[in-house]
């Protein structure tokens, strides 16, 4: 309830904006560090991360979706914590990897759920009751996890064949499975607490894309 109230409160999005900006500036600093000290990993991770943090603003402008400051904080912190991790903390703090996986998975879960709700609202033929949405969020996150690990595996193979250092790598069986388990934690959090809040986000996206708000049957 309080989360929802805060989200509706458009009078003070300044704090969220500021947090997002600070993280973006630090990402620029990481890219700069990579350039100066010749660390390709910091450049690719920081650069891609920095680009991702601008996606919400791009979407809001191009599709006329009302801005949501929390979405910016959410996406930017996921990217930021991962970039910090690949620069230093993954090697230093054992649980950092779990934290970033849960956070990124929560983003995937949020995106999956918002898409589902948007389809549900937009299409007359699709109707997904809330209890199926819970299952759907898990299916999306676990399936995405499999595709992601396969992607990392492919990068490892390419990197072994060509000697090019890749921004992502796998670290053995235990790490792969633990990644999936912490991904599920992120999915569980969104599936449990996110539904009430994200329903409003999907409705706003629908409104932004199609002008009028259809009655969500």
């Amino acid at each position: 309830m309080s989360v929802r109230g805060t989200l509706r409160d458009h009078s003070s999005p300044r704090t969220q904006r500021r947090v997002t900006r600070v993280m973006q500036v630090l990402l620029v600093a990481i890219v700069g560090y990579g350039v100066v000290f010749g660390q390709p990993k910091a450049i690719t991770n920081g650069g891609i991360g920095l680009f991702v943090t601008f996606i919400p603003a791009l979407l809001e402008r191009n599709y006329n979706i009302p801005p949501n400051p929390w979405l910016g904080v959410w996406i930017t912190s996921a990217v930021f914590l991962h970039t910090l991790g690949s620069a230093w903390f993954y090697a230093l703090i054992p649980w950092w990897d779990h934290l970033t996986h849960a956070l990124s998975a929560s983003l995937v879960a949020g995106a999956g759920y918002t898409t589902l709700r948007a389809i549900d609202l937009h299409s007359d033929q699709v109707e997904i009751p809330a209890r199926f949405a819970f299952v759907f969020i898990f299916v999306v996150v676990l399936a995405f996890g499999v595709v992601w690990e396969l992607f990392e595996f492919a990068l490892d193979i390419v990197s072994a064949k060509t000697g090019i250092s890749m921004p992502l790598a796998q670290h053995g069986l235990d790490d792969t499975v633990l990644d999936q388990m912490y991904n599920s934690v992120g999915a569980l959090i969104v599936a449990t607490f996110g539904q009430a809040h994200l329903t409003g986000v999907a409705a706003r996206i629908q409104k932004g894309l199609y002008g009028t708000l259809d009655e969500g049957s």
Partner: protein
Amino acid sequence: MSMNSDKSAPKATDGNSGVEIDEFDPSDSEPDVLEGDAIEGRLERLLRSGRTNALVAWAMVTVLAGVFVESLFDFDLLPMAIIAAMIVVVAAPAVAARDPKVMLPWEVLGLALLPVLVRALFGGEMGTFAAYLAIAAFALIITVEFQMFTTLRVTHWFAVVFVVMTTLATAAAWTVLRWNADRMLGTNLLTTNEALMIEWLYVTLAGLVAGILFDAYFRRREAYLRRVIGWVVRR
């Protein structure tokens, strides 16, 4: 389940209207009926009530029942639970309709039960690819049945995408279960990361093949139904 009550309605929404009857009665098959609920009814039209189909389907259920009795004697809890769940899922439409002829198409059931049937009848183990193709078929069956028995409504393309994702998600969940079993029960189900990635690669292929297969299957059934109705109406 009433087969004919909604045939006059141009757009039926109660979910039971799309059940196909193999022997078409000319009186209840105006072409516009199909046009009206062509998209929504596509999933439920997977159900058939033909006699040949029912015979083949029930023969498969009989094999399942045999496997269940066998696991009962051996007191193998996991196979017992899995086979019992399979029987419930396969027999649910017939039980709900109180008509043994209302069964899923034998070709879909056959794909879903292939690993179990092959193991029971020939004693061989199927590979990862076939096993996950079967899981995809099961995901499709369960989606169709949820659509029948709950307020869930999905379209053809949604069902195909969902089935592909469910296949991948099942592999992930099964991996997490195996890993924890290895840790806590001292089993050796998982070996190396590379072996797991190759397994997941096959799973992904199986999921995609299942998606393409089901998509083509839905379209063919649709075309077949149009032909049958056209033939009946012309007479």
